[in-house]
């Protein structure tokens, strides 16, 4: 529950960020799309949901539902990891897990299949692109798990510092191999303004930094506070 509530707060902040930095790029991309359609002599696409709704309440819903779910999953992972990853307090663990999540679920997949504004991408390949995107996320999570386990196994023999370095190197190698093997997608129209694309992607990444940053810090703070507030319950589980 706490994870989901924190997720909502993170979602609100992420929405603010998205609205400020993301929407102008979406609007520019849509303007570009309409211009191309007009140049080809095609009628503009009918609007099932108006742009005002899409860019305000629709965006808000999407971001909140997404961040609430991420927050909930985050708290499940936290509940499992707490007490199992060495002697580390809730605040530090929460920040660490959020950083790991941001890296493996967002940054690594973005490197291969970055976020695209409207009008980039061929509608016929949406199935393929969606599959590849989720495969990349799964590979990234698997690679992180393997690397962390490997690092922990090596720690007694090589020391924590070296084991962490070896684990990180393993993660980089696994991701590099996966990204070389997975097929490339390049469907950016030749005339699409590069600046809009760049700003859109930076904004998309920024939204995730806000979301995961809030999640990691706020969840850790609240958990630490509630744990020190209820020491009596400890007896129940011991």
């Amino acid at each position, binding site marked *: 529950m706490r994870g989901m509530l924190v997720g909502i707060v993170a979602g609100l902040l992420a929405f603010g960020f998205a609205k400020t930095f993301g929407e102008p790029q979406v609007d520019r991309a849509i303007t570009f799309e309409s211009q191309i359609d007009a140049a080809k002599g095609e009628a503009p696409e009918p609007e099932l949901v108006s742009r005002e*709704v899409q860019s305000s309440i629709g965006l808000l819903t*999407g971001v909140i539902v997404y961040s609430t779910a991420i927050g909930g999953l985050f708290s499940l992972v936290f509940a*499992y990891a707490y007490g199992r990853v060495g002697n580390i307090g809730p605040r530090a663990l929460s920040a660490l897990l959020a950083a790991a999540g941001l890296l493996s679920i967002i940054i690594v997949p973005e490197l291969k299949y970055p976020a695209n504004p409207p009008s980039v991408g061929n509608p016929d390949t949406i199935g393929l692109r969606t599959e590849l995107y989720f495969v990349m996320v799964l590979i990234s999570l698997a690679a992180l798990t393997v690397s962390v386990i490997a690092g922990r196994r090596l720690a007694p023999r090589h020391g924590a510092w070296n084991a962490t370095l070896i684990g990180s190197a393993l993660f980089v190698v696994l991701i590099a191999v996966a990204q070389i093997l997975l097929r490339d997608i390049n469907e950016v129209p030749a005339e699409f303004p590069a600046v809009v694309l760049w700003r859109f992607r930076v904004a998309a990444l920024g939204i995730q930094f806000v979301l995961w940053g809030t999640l990691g810090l706020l969840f850790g703070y609240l958990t630490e506070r509630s744990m020190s507030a209820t020491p009596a319950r400890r007896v129940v589980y011991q």
Partner: protein
Amino acid sequence: MINAAVAGPVAQPVPIPVRTLLPWVIFGGIMMLLMIYFVGAEEGATSIISGMYVHEYVHDGRHLLGFPCH
């Protein structure tokens, strides 16, 4: 939620038994993956509900959160 019930002063964190966690993980996990699915993929690549309303409604969020949209 669950973790609030576990440890007191955090000198030695006590792991929550997997058996206590499992029902949360299964039900919560499925529910939340479904939520992400609706924001991220419904009516793009695959579709449970017919029509494009869900897709169009969360359209901007989907683009900005980095999911392949259309």
